């Protein structure tokens, strides 16, 4: 390792102890907030109001977790978040796989224009459509339904997923498809039997991006689904605040429960997520 000391700015800090300091800075910056919430979630209300404040919990307790589930329908919030994210991800993938295939493989006359539209939509501020979408959902009686969120979330992730998938499709040799078509596959057949399986990592990456986008969205969920039974997690978490009291240990426990599912997804698929983010973010 020492033999291959890196060049460039890196070697300003290439000594081992300096590298350790760099790692420490990165890890503390990235993980301290989540760690602090985890520590808070194990503290009792009494410990929380001690001065000076304690860092490590003195008498760790799991009571906050059971209260987080009993005070509010936390499982329902999780279920709503999960189903909305899952269904909008599925819809996004279906639509963007088709569009990306056309962009990667067909001789489109207006390809440049279509790409510009996709990029413009990827920066579209969905917030500004709060009024018309609110009106439409209200008129269609869709307020307080999953559909009211699934449709906008699909549009939210569609551009970035299309860009990621287009770049993955472009990397697949055309010969494979042609061979399949010579063997009697139709174009759709070739798409779903050859191209999609071969770009499975890309489809998967796009899927994770869409899922995280939906899982994180707050404003539309807050505006369209206020019924406690249909709140998603970020919206539901507000219900723990009493009029005057702010039960921080219980809120922290609920936050930990909300962070864990996506954290697991990120830990398992970290490399794919990074490649997807950079492919989607840097395209163009």
């Amino acid at each position, binding site marked *: 390792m020492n033999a291959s*000391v890196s060049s460039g700015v*890196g070697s300003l800090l290439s000594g081992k102890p300096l*590298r350790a300091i760099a790692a420490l800075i990165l890890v503390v910056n*990235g*993980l301290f907030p989540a760690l602090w919430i985890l520590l808070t979630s194990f503290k009792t209300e009494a410990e929380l109001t001690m001065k000076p404040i304690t860092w490590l919990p003195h008498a760790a307790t799991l009571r906050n977790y059971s209260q987080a589930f009993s005070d509010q329908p936390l499982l329902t919030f999780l279920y709503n978040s999960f189903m909305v994210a899952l269904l909008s991800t599925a819809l996004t993938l279906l639509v963007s796989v088709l569009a990306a295939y056309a962009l990667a493989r067909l001789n489109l006359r207006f390809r440049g224009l279509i790409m*510009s539209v996709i990029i413009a939509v990827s920066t579209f501020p969905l917030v500004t459509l709060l009024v018309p979408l609110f009106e439409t959902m209200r008129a269609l009686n869709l307020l307080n339904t999953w559909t009211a969120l699934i449709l906008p979330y699909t549009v939210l992730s569609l551009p970035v997923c299309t860009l990621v998938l287009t770049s993955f499709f472009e990397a697949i040799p055309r010969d494979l498809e042609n061979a399949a078509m010579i063997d009697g596959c139709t174009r759709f057949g070739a798409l779903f039997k050859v191209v999609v399986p071969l770009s499975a990592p890309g489809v998967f990456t796009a899927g994770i991006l869409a899922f995280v986008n939906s899982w994180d969205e707050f404003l539309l969920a807050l*505006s369209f689904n206020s019924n406690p039974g249909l709140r998603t997690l970020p919206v539901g978490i507000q219900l723990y605040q009493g009029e005057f009291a702010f039960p*921080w240990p219980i809120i922290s426990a609920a936050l930990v429960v909300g962070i864990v599912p996506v954290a697991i997804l990120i830990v398992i698929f970290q490399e794919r997520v990074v490649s997807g983010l950079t492919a989607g973010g*840097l395209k163009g």
Partner: protein
Amino acid sequence: MESMVKNAAGRVDTRRAILSRWLDPDETTLAVLLLAPAAILLGVMIVYPVGRLIYTSFLDLSLTSGLPARFAGLANYQQMLDDPVFWQATWNTILITLITVPGALLVGLGLALLANLPFQMRWPVRLSLLIPWALPLAFAGLIFAWFFHSEYGVVNDVLGRIGLPGVIWFNSPRLAFAAICLAIIWKASSFMAMIILAGLQTIPRSLYEAADVDGAGRVRQFFEITLPLLKPTIVVALIFRTITSLQTFDIPYMMTGGGPGTSTATLAMYIHQNTVSFLDLGYGSALAVVMFGLSMCVTALYLRMIRGSERAS
């Protein structure tokens, strides 16, 4: 008898031809079929609502009044110009953008340079950039509200340990605003860092080796090789960040709710309040048109730049 058989065969043939045209359409038909779902979705969820938004912004449409919609001309826009909260919220939004976009860039650049060191284990570094990105903004807002809690927050605790007096962050407009900006910079910098890190990794090592031979110092290498080669990456990241920042809602909503008073309210928060709480759809629309305009300016800049770089290459 013979002709009947022939007829039947002919019918099967045409059916087969129709079927195969559907299953194996020519290029143009296929393109239309493949792009149609995306186009319909964008039409229904974006194009139509944008038209509706602009139309509604000229209406007097308040759901609480129970009166039917009435054309009001520019009344909503007139009201906006005379509305101090609108100016406050717009100014806050612009100020947040001016502070947090460069802030997140600088912190992100620093993190990316650190993360680009030759670590033996890559995953802890990667995770410490990915977890803040994946954390919902609303969660980040709550967590930072807890960090800056005046009595039991960890920020005041650390201040106390190094001998500084703790402060009541959310009672003062300035301090509350500073706390919000810090939270946004923390949340946004990790995504910046990931994008910049990917850019760093595409810079060929040979450039630095050549510079070493020429005797250029590290600092010079950074300003003359790293930074110029990162420029396209950084510009794209900045534009995305700027547009996202104009929509700031979650973090201030969770940390201060716009308070004290309306001193930390953003344009998105004011749109939300007028639409969902006051059900004043006309005024909410006029406010949204302003944000739409702001954001379109940045997008236009972006598209022009992409076209420019395509022509250049």
